[in-house]
């Protein structure tokens, strides 16, 4: 193929894929095999939710609030009801269900507010659902939705979390203030003492702006109801079908065992398809009400108005440091935007996925982090790729950079000086985590080598003399993923366990179906899980079929988010496969007339120890298991196993990302010279897929750093409500990336994997911001808020007179 003769540019090279047919069975795990899901996605054969057509299917459209905060005076549906094709118009009073959208995570003093499926007398964000219309045709439904008249009594709105906590802020819910919770972690007294003893304290205020996930496929649902047996089938854009089944069954009062959630091909999620929104449940309810299939797909405008947003922090951070560059303490105070209602995992995001990560890669003796969650008139804020961990890594890495500058140390060496030593793992942080494994200097050293750091500093100096401003920015990030040990998260407030289930089933002909309760939506699980299972069973990769996404097919599951699929779902499949092997061993031993203890399993074959010719392939054992003509006495027919795997700990990927930029102080323009990512995600199942996840993650992180942000006016109206106004990065906006990795296996799971889905998004923003601030060091620029628009950069340069 053409890549063999491609240029020597390492950014062009990357990892080379291989055809699975060219890979030895023993090498399948860890090979960059081409993705098996691609041909259907590339030819239009894929089936996304909106592709599903059912006989007699009607279409739904949702009437949404024009205003961010208002009382509903009157809803007039009469005009809509009389329109062509309309089969039903419903408001809150028509919903005969408990109809409250739940939160799946509690905190000690969490204020849980009602979140009705359709607003009853008050709307709290622009886009809050008020009514729904079902019609024969797609356009008819939208026409009729436009004809629903709503009279509002407008109320003042509040958008920023800091403002919403002010005494005179408009109040969203019927309480005295907008506090959703207060939360803290770490030891306040010890941290105060560390600050008192340290040589210097550096402070920084940062805003981590609200982001809109922008999965390319808008959320969609097709629901179908069979009244005869009360079966309700819901095809929907879900990252976690079983979680949606559990929550939806409660919301619309439908028995869980008669509710099927099926996620067909799903066009990206980035967190936005984890949550239980009102909309999907409304479709299911309408299908039941009308006893016919109903389809809804969000318009892009609706995704901007209603998809759960991410980040939204206003943070004051302080770092205590000695003159020799040793960090003594860290203090963080954050106001976190929760939006108008508490979304599914929302309470966990700015708390246990944020405060616990504030130790970064560093041995910091004392840390204290406190967070106040604030209700505001924006859509619910919940997990978006990274979810809490980008916010933590951003404030830590920005403070570390400022601290290095304050004590006049090189930022790379400052980091190295404070790293948790490679010999000190597992490492307990002052904020309740135990890092599994790590070798932080390795990724830093490799990154420094790739950017030729010493030469860069010389070039930078030379360039400055010529009036050109180059900058380099480091991000030595860590994340906790592989969510999560169930007992631990239960103690922290999760209303669910975060184990995963896997089912490995041989057919009588020796092929295998592997099912997992995760639910991929672009990550390539069909490929990577087949690699894992083929490796465990020693069968041909092509003989393993992977099934995900359907609650009727898969025993149970918690879904795909938090970079958990390989670490938790993959491990569940390993556990299932090993149980299958143990059963097969007994059958093989019986067939080979040997004791199971004397039968070894290798490369898909059982053989008697010391007698390799007395052997039996596991596929032949499968046939015997189903024939069941001659099985050992204590062995039942069949060859399959379902296993639930509950991890002992999170896993902790880490790495060093380095951005190299040139900034034009006259225009504020930023050009990338290079972007280097060295990540350690533990063992890699498929290095090409790992690389792709890093690329995509970095792109979203660069998007946050330079382009993206949900912006609202003072009335809570979204002013970035389309792809014209919200800058989803285009091909020209993302730099060429140079990637490499080190491998420090995780001791937590049998695959030794960590997680990679969120790494790039967590790492990139602060690498870019640090680089720009480094470039503008001659102008005494210390911080610029994201996104670093030309205007903001120019203003930062000119705040200090614009002279270097």
């Amino acid at each position, binding site marked *: *193929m053409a890549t063999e003769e491609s240029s020597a540019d390492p950014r062009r090279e990357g990892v080379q894929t291989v055809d699975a047919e060219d890979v030895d069975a023993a090498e399948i795990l860890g090979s960059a095999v081409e993705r098996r899901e691609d041909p259907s996605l590339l030819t239009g054969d894929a089936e996304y939710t909106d592709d599903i*057509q059912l006989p007699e299917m009607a279409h739904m459209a949702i009437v949404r609030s024009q205003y961010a905060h208002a009382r509903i005076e009157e809803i007039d549906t009469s005009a809509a009801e009389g329109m062509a094709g309309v089969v039903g118009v419903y408001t809150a009073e028509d919903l005969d269900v408990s109809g409250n959208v739940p939160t799946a995570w509690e905190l000690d003093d969490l204020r849980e507010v009602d979140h009705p499926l359709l607003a009853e007398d008050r709307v709290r964000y622009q886009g809050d659902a008020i009514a729904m219309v079902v019609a024969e045709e797609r356009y008819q439904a939208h026409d009729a939705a436009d004809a629903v008249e709503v009279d509002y009594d407008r109320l003042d709105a509040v958008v920023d979390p800091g403002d919403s906590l002010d005494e005179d802020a408009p109040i969203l819910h019927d309480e005295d203030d907008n506090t959703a919770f207060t939360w803290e972690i770490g030891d306040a007294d010890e941290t105060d003492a560390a600050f008192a003893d340290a040589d210097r304290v550096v402070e920084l205020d940062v805003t981590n702006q609200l982001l809109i996930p922008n999965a*390319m496929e808008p959320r969609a649902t097709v629901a179908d109801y069979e009244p005869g047996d009360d079966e309700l089938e819901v095809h929907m854009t879900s990252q976690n079908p079983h979680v949606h089944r559990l929550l939806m069954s409660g919301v619309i009062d439908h028995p869980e065992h008669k509710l099927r959630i099926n996620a067909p091909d799903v066009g990206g999620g980035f967190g936005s398809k984890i949550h239980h929104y009102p909309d999907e449940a409304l479709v299911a309810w309408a299908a039941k009400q009308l006893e016919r299939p109903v389809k809804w797909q969000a318009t892009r405008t609706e995704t901007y108005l209603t998809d759960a947003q991410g980040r939204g922090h206003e943070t004051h951070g302080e770092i205590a440091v000695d003159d020799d560059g040793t960090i003594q303490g860290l203090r963080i105070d954050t106001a976190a935007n929760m939006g108008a209602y508490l979304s599914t995992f929302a309470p966990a995001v700015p708390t246990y996925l944020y405060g616990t990560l504030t130790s970064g890669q560093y041995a910091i003796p004392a840390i204290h982090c406190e967070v106040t969650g604030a209700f505001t008139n924006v859509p619910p804020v919940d997990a978006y790729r990274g979810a809490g961990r980008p916010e933590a890594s951003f404030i830590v890495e920005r403070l570390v950079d400022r601290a290095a500058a304050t004590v006049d140390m090189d930022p790379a060496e400052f980091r190295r000086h404070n790293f948790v030593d490679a010999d000190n793992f597992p490492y307990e942080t002052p904020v309740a985590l135990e890092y599994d494994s790590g070798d932080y200097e390795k990724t830093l050293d490799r990154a420094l080598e790739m950017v030729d750091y010493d030469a860069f500093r010389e070039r930078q100096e030379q360039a400055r003399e010529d009036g050109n401003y180059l900058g380099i920015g480091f991000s030595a990030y860590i994340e906790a993923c592989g969510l999560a040990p169930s007992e631990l998260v239960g103690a922290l407030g999760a209303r669910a366990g975060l184990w995963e289930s896997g089912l490995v089933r041989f057919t009588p002909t020796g092929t295998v179906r592997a099912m997992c309760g995760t639910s991929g939506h*672009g990550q390539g699980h069909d490929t990577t899980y087949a690699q894992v299972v083929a490796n465990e069973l020693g069968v041909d990769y092509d003989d393993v079929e992977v099934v995900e996404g359907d609650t009727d097919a898969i025993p149970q599951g918690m879904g795909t988010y938090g970079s958990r699929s390989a670490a938790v779902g993959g491990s569940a499949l390993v556990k299932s496969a090993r149980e299958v092997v143990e059963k097969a061993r007994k059958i093989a031993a019986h067939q080979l007339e040997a004791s199971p203890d004397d039968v070894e399993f290798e490369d898909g074959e059982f053989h008697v120890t010391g007698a390799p010719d007395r052997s039996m392939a596991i596929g032949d054992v499968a046939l015997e298991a189903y024939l069941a003509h001659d099985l050992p006495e204590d062995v039942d027919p069949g060859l399959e196993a379902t296993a639930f795997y509950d991890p002992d700990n999170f896993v902790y990927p880490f790495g060093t990302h380095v951005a190299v930029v040139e900034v034009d102080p006259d225009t504020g323009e930023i050009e990338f010279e290079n972007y280097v990512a060295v990540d350690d995600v533990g063992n890699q199942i498929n290095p090409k897929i790992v690389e792709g996840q890093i690329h995509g993650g970095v792109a979203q992180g660069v998007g946050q750093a330079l382009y993206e942000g949900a912006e609202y006016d003072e009335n809570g109206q979204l002013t970035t409500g389309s792809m014209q106004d919200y800058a989803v990065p285009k091909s020209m906006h993302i730099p060429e*990336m140079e990637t490499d990795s080190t491998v420090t296996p995780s001791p937590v799971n049998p695959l030794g994997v960590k997680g990679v889905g969120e790494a790039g998004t967590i790492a990139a923003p602060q690498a870019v911001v640090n680089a720009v601030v480094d470039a503008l060091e001659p102008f005494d620029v210390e911080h610029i808020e994201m996104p670093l628009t030309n205007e903001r950069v120019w203003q930062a340069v000119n705040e200090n007179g614009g002279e270097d």
Partner: protein
Amino acid sequence: MEDITLTVNGTDHELSVEPRTLLIHALRDEMGYTGPNVGCESSMCGACTVHIDGRAVKSCTELAVRAEDSEITTIEDLGDEGDLHPLQKSFQEEHGLQCGYCTPGMVMTAAEFLDEEPDPSREEIREALEGNLCRCTGYQNIVNAVESAAAEMSAAVEPATDGGAVPDDGGTAPDNGGVVPGDGSPVESGGD
């Protein structure tokens, strides 16, 4: 309602549509061509890109009635799972897709682009794909895929003795993803 005939992937379809019906909805809902996807309804994202008379067009902002008397080509006609077009093959080899939602549009835009510019630079590829958004890949492997396909397709048409890269599709498809113009004759030269 308007009675129209649309020619999609070489097949004539008679249908009744409203004057306002968008081509993407006619393709997907009326005729079952669900390869092109709806991403933004505003021609910003390009997930709905199809070819009309060989030109890449965003079908979410094109009226179905305006597409009469044209040859419409969707991703379904570019190649089959067992016989992928060089671009489809290179997207797989280079991991140029993840969730796949933007991919049909991305590939159709790239196909038209390579038809016009068989030997593009990476910068030119990025410019050509500016109207197609991808949220998964960070674009780098898409650029790699288009670059690889360009080399592959140029190499394939260069000898031009056996029809080059023209897949044997029975001659029903007027469009072969930019390798061959609509009249079915091989491209003169692939450039180098």
